[in-house]
C-alpha cells in the first residue's frame, strides 16, 4: 500500500474538494466538517467526474411531504445522472450492495510526523507546522 500526501488540510475548504492523480487514477478528496473522504473520481454508472457532484444531505422520508435530513454534505449527487453516493463508503443509494464507488483510506498527519518519513516522495513540500491529508492506494 502506498501513501500519498495530497493536500494540506487548510487547502480544501469545508464543502470543497481536490482532485489528484495517484498511480494513474483520478482521485477526488472531499472535506466535510473536519473529515476527509477520498473516492475514485469516476461514477460507476457512466464515468462522470464526481468532483463536480452536488454535496447534499442524506434525505429520507417516512411519508409523502415529510423530508428528513441528516449527514448534511456527505452525500454526493453525481454531476450527470444524479445518482446518490455516500462519501464515507462509496455506496450508491439505490443499490448499496452492488453499485458503489471505490473509496480510499484517508488519514491526517501533522508535518512533524511526516517530516520523519516514510511517505511517497512526490515533491510535495511539507512544513512541520501544517497538517496533511494522506490517501492510501
Amino acid at each position, binding site marked *: 500500500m502506498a501513501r500519498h500526501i495530497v493536500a494540506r488540510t487548510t487547502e480544501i475548504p469545508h464543502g470543497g474538494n481536490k482532485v489528484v*492523480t495517484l498511480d494513474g487514477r483520478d482521485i477526488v478528496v472531499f472535506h466535510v466538517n473536519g473529515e476527509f473522504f477520498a473516492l475514485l*473520481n469516476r461514477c460507476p454508472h*457512466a464515468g462522470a467526474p464526481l468532483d463536480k457532484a452536488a454535496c447534499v444531505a442524506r434525505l429520507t422520508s417516512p411519508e409523502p411531504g415529510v423530508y428528513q435530513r441528516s449527514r448534511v454534505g456527505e452525500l454526493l449527487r453525481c454531476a450527470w445522472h444524479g445518482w446518490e453516493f455516500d462519501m464515507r463508503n462509496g455506496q450508491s443509494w439505490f443499490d448499496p450492495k452492488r453499485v458503489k464507488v471505490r473509496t480510499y483510506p484517508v488519514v491526517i498527519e501533522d508535518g512533524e510526523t511526516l517530516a520523519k518519513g516514510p511517505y511517497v516522495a512526490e515533491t510535495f513540500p511539507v512544513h512541520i507546522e501544517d497538517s496533511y491529508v494522506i490517501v492510501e492506494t
Partner: protein
Amino acid sequence: MSEVIDRPMLEQEAPAKSRLKIIDCDIHPSLHARSDLNPFLSKRWQEHLKTYGDHLRTPYIGTTPYPRSSPLIARRDAWPPTGGPPGSDLDFMRKQHLDPLDIEFGMLQVLDMFIFSQQNLEFGAAIQRAVNEWQLAHWTSREPRLKAAILVGQDDAAAAVAEIERCAKIGQYLQINVSPRANEPLGRRRYWPIYARAEELGMPLGIHVGGYGGHAPTGGGWPSYYAEEHQSNAHSMAATLTSLVLEGVPEHFPRLKIVFIEGGFGWISSTMWRMDQHFERFRAEVPHLKRRPSEYVREHFWFTTQPIDEPDEARHLRSLIEWVGVDRLLFSSDYPHWDFDDPRFAFKTPLSEEERAKIFNSNARALYKL
C-alpha cells in the same frame, strides 16, 4: 457483481484516437443572454423581447413549473469556465465534448426561446428567424462539425413555410424541426404544408421532445413531479408517432423522413405491436392507410438513442434494439443535459462492428446526407 469502476485514467480527457467517428444527433447550444439575438431582430422585436418576452402556455415567465433536478437541466460539469450557461461556449463544447469523443458531426437542437410554442405568432416568427440565423453566425460558420436545423413554429404553418423557404435558399440547414407538443397532434392536416415542403426539399423532419402546446403532460391531468413529467416525454413521442402514422403522413408524403429526437427508443416496439394489433378492428376509420402501421414506422422514421434504456440485464437492451431495428437508430448524447448519454458507456450490451458503425455513424450519415 460489483459495478465498481477501478481502472487507471491515463490522460485527462485527451482527444481520442479515431476508432469510430461519431455523429451526435442531439446537441444543445445555448444563448449567453437573450440579447444575443438582437443583431438578428428588428428594433420592434428587440424591444418586445426585452419587455413582454415569452408568451407561453405555462404559468411562469422565467422557469418551468416542474423544476429540474439540476440547474438549467445540465450536467454540473458543463458550465464553461469563462462564464455563461452550459452549451453557450463553443470552445468549451469542443474541449469537453466534440474533441475527446471524436464527434465527426453534431446536429444542433436549439431549445432556447421556445420557438415552437410562442402564443404571439408574429413574435414567434421573428425569433425563429433570429435563432435560425444565430445558429449559422455563432455556431456552424465557426465550427464545421456542427450542423444547423430550420426551427419553425408549427402552429403558424404559413409563417413556418415562409421561414423554411428563406433558410432553404441559404442551404446551410440539414433538417426542419417542429415540436411534438403543438396545439394539435402533429399528424393533423394543418401541419401538412410544412411536411410537403420538407418532402419537396428532401430534408428530414426533426421532432425534438418538449414544447408548451397547452395540454397537460398526461391524458389524465397534471402530474405533481418532474419525475413524472420527465417520463411523459416518451409518452408524447408515442402519441405523436401514432398521430403521424394514422393520419397518413407517411402514406401521403412517401419520401418524407421523420426523426424523433430525445425520446429514446424503448417504447417503440410495443407501440408498433399495439398499432398493428388493433389495425384490423379500426381499419374502417383509416381507409387511407394502405399498409400496416409498423411498416410505415420501419420505412419512414428514425429515432435517436438517448435517453438509452437501462434494463437490469444487458441482453434485454439487445432485444429492444433488435425489435426496433438497428437501421432505425441514431446515436445522440443530449449534451449538455444531465441525462446525457456518453457514447463510450451508454450501450451496456455488446454491438457488432457493423451495428456500431450504423448506430454511431452511417445511419445518420445517410439520413442527413453528410
